[in-house]
């Protein structure tokens, strides 16, 4: 019996995944907060606890994500783009385009049969199309970020946003509210604006009919639906989209 750990220290959340024989056995998600080292340990311990394991049962650990180097107990560091690609290739072997919507970054990645990167693109220094957009929207409307998806699906008349910038969208949302727009229409409008921004990334990197949406954004059903509308197809969504890179890291660890 050998267990392998993947740890993804993201800008918003830290994710740990434990695999045995390339199969996911346990995972944990904790907020990254201001101490990435602490978050990495916490997520690891939580995931281990679910299997009644201790650190010594882990044969190899690969860290990934924005704060990967802070997980200093890892044996190796691999970029989150490679880890997303690997994670998705294990989950959905036919998927060739991965759209990862994280707290700060959105990435579009094209992959080959073996889950290797063919090409990738990230949003530049701009939160448009990233999870930040959703956080801002939830804050303005005083709703939980988890509720945005459901709310969006209730919309009958999505608000047209004229900007893809998260900061300007905030003031635009406020103007629309002052004009009497419904919260669900605001959310649906934000989802649409994000989807079109994501669409430009996907167009640049190369669109394939089989694509997956990962990261925290993959949990927002309204956003996924808006992306599906833009791409005129249906996304593959992992059971837990947020741990895709951690899973990929654990798979990499298994082959070390």
């Amino acid at each position, binding site marked *: 019996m050998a267990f392998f750990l993947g740890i993804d220290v993201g800008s918003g959340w830290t994710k740990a995944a434990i695999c045995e024989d390339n199969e996911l056995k346990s995972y944990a998600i904790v907020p990254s907060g201001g101490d990435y080292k602490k978050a990495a340990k916490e997520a690891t311990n939580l995931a281990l606890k679910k299997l009644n394991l201790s650190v010594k049962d882990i044969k190899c650990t690969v860290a990934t994500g*924005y704060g990967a180097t802070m997980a200093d107990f890892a044996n190796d*560091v691999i*970029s*989150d*783009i*490679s880890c997303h690609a690997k994670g998705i290739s294990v989950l959905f072997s036919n998927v060739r385009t991965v759209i990862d919507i994280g707290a700060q970054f959105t990435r579009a990645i094209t992959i080959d049969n073996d889950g290797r*990167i063919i090409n*990738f693109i*990230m949003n530049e*220094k701009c939160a448009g199309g990233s999870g930040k957009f959703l956080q801002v929207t939830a804050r303005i409307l005083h709703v939980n970020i988890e509720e945005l998806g459901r709310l969006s699906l209730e919309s009958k008349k999505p608000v047209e946003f004229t900007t893809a910038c998260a900061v300007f969208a905030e003031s635009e949302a406020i103007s629309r509210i002052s004009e009497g727009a419904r919260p669900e229409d605001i959310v649906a409008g934000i989802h649409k604006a994000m989807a079109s921004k994501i669409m430009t990334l996907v167009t640049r990197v190369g669109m394939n009919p089989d694509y997956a949406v990962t990261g925290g954004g993959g949990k927002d059903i309204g956003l996924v639906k808006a992306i599906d509308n833009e791409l005129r197809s249906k996304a593959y969504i992992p059971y837990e989209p947020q741990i895709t890179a951690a899973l990929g890291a654990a798979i990499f660890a298994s082959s070390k």
Partner: protein
Amino acid sequence: MAGIQNLKGLAKAEKYYTDYGTRAKELRAQGNRVIGYISALSPVEILTASGVVPFRLKGNVEEAITKGDAYMETIVCPFVRNVFDSAIKGKFHFIDGMVLPHQCDSLDRTSDIWRDYLNLSYFHFLNVPHVTDEPSIEFMKEILRLFISTIEDFTGNKITVDSLKKAISLHNENRRLMRSLYDLRKSNPPLITGSEMMKVLVAAMGLPVYESIELIKEIIEDVKGRKPLTDGQRKRIMLIGDQIDSVIITDTIEKAGAYLVMDDISIGSKMYWQDVDEDKEPILALAERYLRKLKIPTTFVDTGGTYEENLNARFGHMRKYIEEFNVEGAILFIYKYCDPYGFEVPAIKSYIEAVAVDVLYLEDEYSISSLARMKTRIEAFLEMIA
């Protein structure tokens, strides 16, 4: 600073890199005049011939712009704003004047700001044309003559054909030596790292040409005798961009697991790859060197031939670098609001990719604020081409 003169080779370059401007300051204190310039489009030969110390102005990616934004709009490119910020804060207090070329909008349209707020004893706007045809060469020659006459008036030193030829010959020697140093990157692994090279390039641009020549000679001696590092197989990368002048960038690339073996950047190969023809009349030779031989995105090149011929004329040198230095991947690193490079990106990318070399395109500020973001991309790129 007394210690610097005792240092040699790479150690000396390191010191000049860290305390940029220290030598120019000393030379000024000894009674020399120092003239600042800002890009590869400045004919340093003329400055050398006039007896002044040419000193390339640079910014600092680790320093926030705190005063400059009160004078320049934020639409101006982050490099120009950062250098101006350093200037207005008095970091270049030892320069007597500066020459600023007609190059990109961020330089052209801010020339009055540099001139009016820095209050230098000498300021010259070098009106370089943007096309390379025959009338433009004639125009460029006149522009160079005008530059010569203003610098003569300022220094009181006449620039003769002989003094100009001598300066040209010195700068060609400097270029030849720097190319010899670059040659030591051709082996696998290279004998000199990209970050060491960056320090040498920055050190050299802050020195009078004869001191640069001596420094590069020492460094070649230092590096030639090295045994190549053997730390595994790494991809050989070329860095393409404009005013990249910090080891933070080169370190980020090399620490991600690459050998940085070549560049097409403003302070690098763009300065050193093309000589001035010593067999021609010097003004004509200079005009041709800066207008035709130097390939920069602000110069419009139209060979009159096909699109492919034009691309070859504009970027052919990069393909040569790829072959000569065995480049396996290119990083195209552009500053935000850099219009000239921004427009070139798709053409450069497809031109290089056509020879089966992958290109990573990065766009960023002239600042280290988003280094972690860059690191992720570079790592993923290296994994992609592995």
